[in-house]
Each structure stands twice: as structure tokens, then as C-alpha cells.
């Protein structure tokens, strides 16, 4: 038993704290999406969270009572060690990896073999049912690569969810997208639709909804810069990390930062009340 003595489990069961422990694997990305929270792009500083730190956080997270691991960035699969790492973490807890899904063409998908039949799900971003609507925000060719990747992943026994970010698509467009997602083999429950957060690059683009401590559900998020309130929190604007949702610079042991997070929970809405997921 850790020294938090069940507090994390209680907070999760009470709906005050998200069950998933998030790990920011890196900040660089092969894309440069217009609404990116972290201003990720190929040439930005990588700011990798070391594999050993990710493993240590996951081990302690499981002991504390978290129910899952989320890995995000940046594009996690730009890290060569990510498939093996995700597979290893899935022995502790179910793993969800947020990815743009564009790095799996041709034989490159073989890199994901360690994930076959593991409790690892890839959450792939897809915003519209046509490249005309999808690609201006995410980059040329994005739609085609994602639509090609999803069935291939499912065929290999790798779980897929789809995440759609809203920035003006109407209901007809979203219905068409839902049909496409179903056609690709993804269940409706595995299609997440959420608003654009007005943080990071989205602010410069004039996009998104207010996403502060009042709006974002509490989800412990570990980065190389510290422990944050939410995976929507460690954002970058003008090349500088936002610290308004920073909880602690201490991430090891995880319990030290989590204790400070628990101390803040009474100030926030419950997870069910929040729209960002």
C-alpha cells in the first residue's frame, strides 16, 4: 500500500479524478496541425519523457489505483521504442496511445507488431469524412493515410478508437463521418468527439473553447516538465510552455505530485461535467 492510502482510487470512484494516467512521450510531430495544443511540428524540441520514467510512473500509477495509461504527445510513434514500451506498459494497465495514424503505411506497420493482441488501443485523429474538410487543419494527404491505416490496424489485432476535434463541422458532416468510422470497423463507442481547446496553436488561429481548470476534468498528466492537471494542460504558445495548469515539477515519486493534485480537486467540476475528453 502506498502512502496515499487509497485516496486516488476513492477520487476516481467519486468522479473527481480521471482513471487514466497520462504520459507525454515527446513533443515533436511529423504534422503541424492548425489547432495543435502543443505547437508540435517536426523541428520543435523533442522533450522526450525517458522510457525509464514512463515505466516508473506506470508501475507507481498502478499501485496508486489508476485504471489505465494514456500516451500522448507530439506524435508518440516518432519514438522507435514506443511500440515495445506501450506493449510493456500494457502488462500493468490498459494503454491508450494518441496518434495521428500517418506513420503506418506499407511495411512500416510491421513496427507495431509488439502491440498485436495486447491491451493497447490507438486513438487516431480524424476530423471529417472528406479530405476537403479534414486536411486543411491536419495537412495534405492526412485523410487518405488515416483511412488506409485503420482497417490494417484492426486486421492485425490492434485496437482503434477515433477522435474528432470540432472546429466548425456541422451535424451532417459529423453524421457522414460517423458512418465512415463505422464502415472502417470502429464501434460507435470508440468514436470520441470533442471541442477544440483554446490553447496552444488554436489560440493563434482564433479557434476553440475556453479550457482552464474549470472546464477540464482532472487527469494526472506527466511530462518531462512536470505534472499537469490534464492532457490538455501542458500546452505551448509562442514556443513557451504554459504553466497555468502546472501542478508540480516533481514527478518521481508520482505520489508526491499526485498528492498536490488531490489537494486541488475540490475546486474543479466532476469529470462527468466536463466536455473535453
Amino acid at each position, binding site marked *: 500500500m502506498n502512502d496515499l492510502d487509497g485516496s486516488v482510487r476513492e477520487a476516481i470512484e467519486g468522479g473527481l479524478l480521471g482513471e487514466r494516467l497520462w504520459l507525454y512521450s515527446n513533443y515533436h510531430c511529423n504534422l503541424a496541425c492548425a489547432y495543435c495544443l502543443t505547437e508540435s511540428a517536426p523541428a520543435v524540441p523533442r522533450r522526450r519523457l525517458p522510457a525509464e520514467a514512463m515505466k516508473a510512473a506506470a508501475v507507481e500509477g498502478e499501485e496508486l489505483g489508476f485504471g489505465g495509461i494514456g500516451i500522448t504527445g507530439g506524435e508518440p510513434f516518432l519514438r522507435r521504442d514506443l511500440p515495445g514500451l506501450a506493449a510493456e506498459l500494457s502488462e500493468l494497465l490498459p494503454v491508450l496511445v494518441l496518434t495521428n495514424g500517418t506513420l503506418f503505411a506499407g511495411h512500416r506497420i510491421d513496427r507495431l507488431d509488439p502491440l498485436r493482441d495486447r491491451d493497447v488501443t490507438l486513438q487516431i485523429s480524424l476530423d471529417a469524412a472528406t479530405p476537403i474538410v479534414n486536411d486543411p487543419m491536419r495537412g495534405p494527404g492526412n485523410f487518405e493515410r488515416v483511412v488506409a491505416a485503420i482497417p490494417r490496424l484492426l486486421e492485425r489485432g490492434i485496437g482503434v478508437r477515433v477522435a474528432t476535434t470540432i472546429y466548425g463541422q456541422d451535424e451532417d458532416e459529423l453524421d457522414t463521418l460517423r458512418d465512415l468510422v463505422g464502415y472502417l470497423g470502429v464501434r460507435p463507442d470508440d468514436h470520441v468527439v470533442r471541442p477544440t481547446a483554446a490553447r496552444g496553436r488554436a489560440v493563434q488561429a482564433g479557434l476553440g473553447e475556453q479550457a482552464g481548470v474549470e472546464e477540464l476534468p482532472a487527469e494526472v498528466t506527466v511530462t518531462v516538465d512536470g505534472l499537469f492537471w490534464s492532457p490538455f494542460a501542458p500546452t505551448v504558445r509562442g514556443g513557451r510552455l504554459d504553466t497555468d495548469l502546472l501542478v*508540480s515539477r516533481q514527478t518521481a515519486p508520482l505520489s508526491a505530485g499526485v498528492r498536490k493534485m488531490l489537494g486541488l480537486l475540490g475546486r474543479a467540476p466532476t469529470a462527468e461535467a466536463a466536455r473535453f475528453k
Partner: protein
Amino acid sequence: MALLNDRPDALVAARLPLVDREQAPLTVRDLYPSDRDASNITKTLAGSPDTLGALAPFLAQVMNPTTLDLATKEVVVLRVSAVNRCAYCVPTHELAARRAGLSPRAVAALASPQPPAAALEGAHRVLARYCDQLVADAGSVDDALLAELRGHFEDHEIVELTVLAGAITMLNYVAGVAAPPLDPWTVAER
């Protein structure tokens, strides 16, 4: 003895980031006053919220009046800052020392790089000498000076004053490295 750097005014850029209210980390947001801006030393420390969160109650404890009054505490704060040549802390605490009741002549003497003995009297005079020796000799104080200090202060008060001198030295180091600009209210009152 010159100050480490020219006295910063409110327009000089800091060498380490100042964390403004809108970027204040969640755990230290309450340390930003609601009725005015936070001090620039607070904004500097907020870059490490865990450090600031632990320091704030400690500093409040060592700087608040106890059996020792505020004027006595400000003698230590101002004198230690002067010996450490802190370009941010000296002007800031010249004002605080005056508000605590020290005379303009005493404040000027304490803020001077030179030993201030002639401008001070009694306990404050001995305490200033104690600060000079404590900081200059890295914590070494000779028996004679300690005995003289005991003539004015209880042993527990000497513990408290010495901890205060150490705490202020720590802040002097932070301000020396970060070089925060003077706070606007300090500039306005000087």
C-alpha cells in the same frame, strides 16, 4: 563594494522568467494577491511552484514579528541584503524598513555597503555587526560578538534571527541570478 549589477528598474528584463498571474501554476495561484500584482521575486519563484509553495509559509514565519518586532527583523533583512549586494532586495526593503519604523538615517546606513555602526544604536547596532560577520564569514561568528548579541537578545531569538539571515541570503541569491526588475510600487515610492 559595488552592487552585483546596476539597480534594476521596472523596465529592465529579468534573466529568468517572471510568471504572470495568468500563467501562475495551480498550487501557488493563491499566493498571487487579489488586490495587486505579485512581487517579482514571487513571480520568479513561481517557475518552481513546489519550491514557492514550501517557501511561502516558511518565509512568512521567519519574517513576521514574534518576540522580535518588525523593525528588528528588517535590520536583518536589509543588512544581509546589503552585504550580499542584492540589487532587488535592498531598495525593496529600504521601504519596508521605513514602514517598520526605522529612521531614514538608520535605513540609509543599513543599505550602505559600508559597516553601518555609527548610525545605529543599542541592539540594532550589535545585530547589524552580527549580520556583517555572519554573511561575510559564511556563518562563523566569534565568541565575543555572540556574547555581545546575547546582551540584547534571548537565545531563541538568536536562532530566529540567524535563520532569517540565512533565508534572506537564499532570496538574495535567487534575485542575484534572476535579476528581477524592481516592483512598480518600489519604483514609485523611492
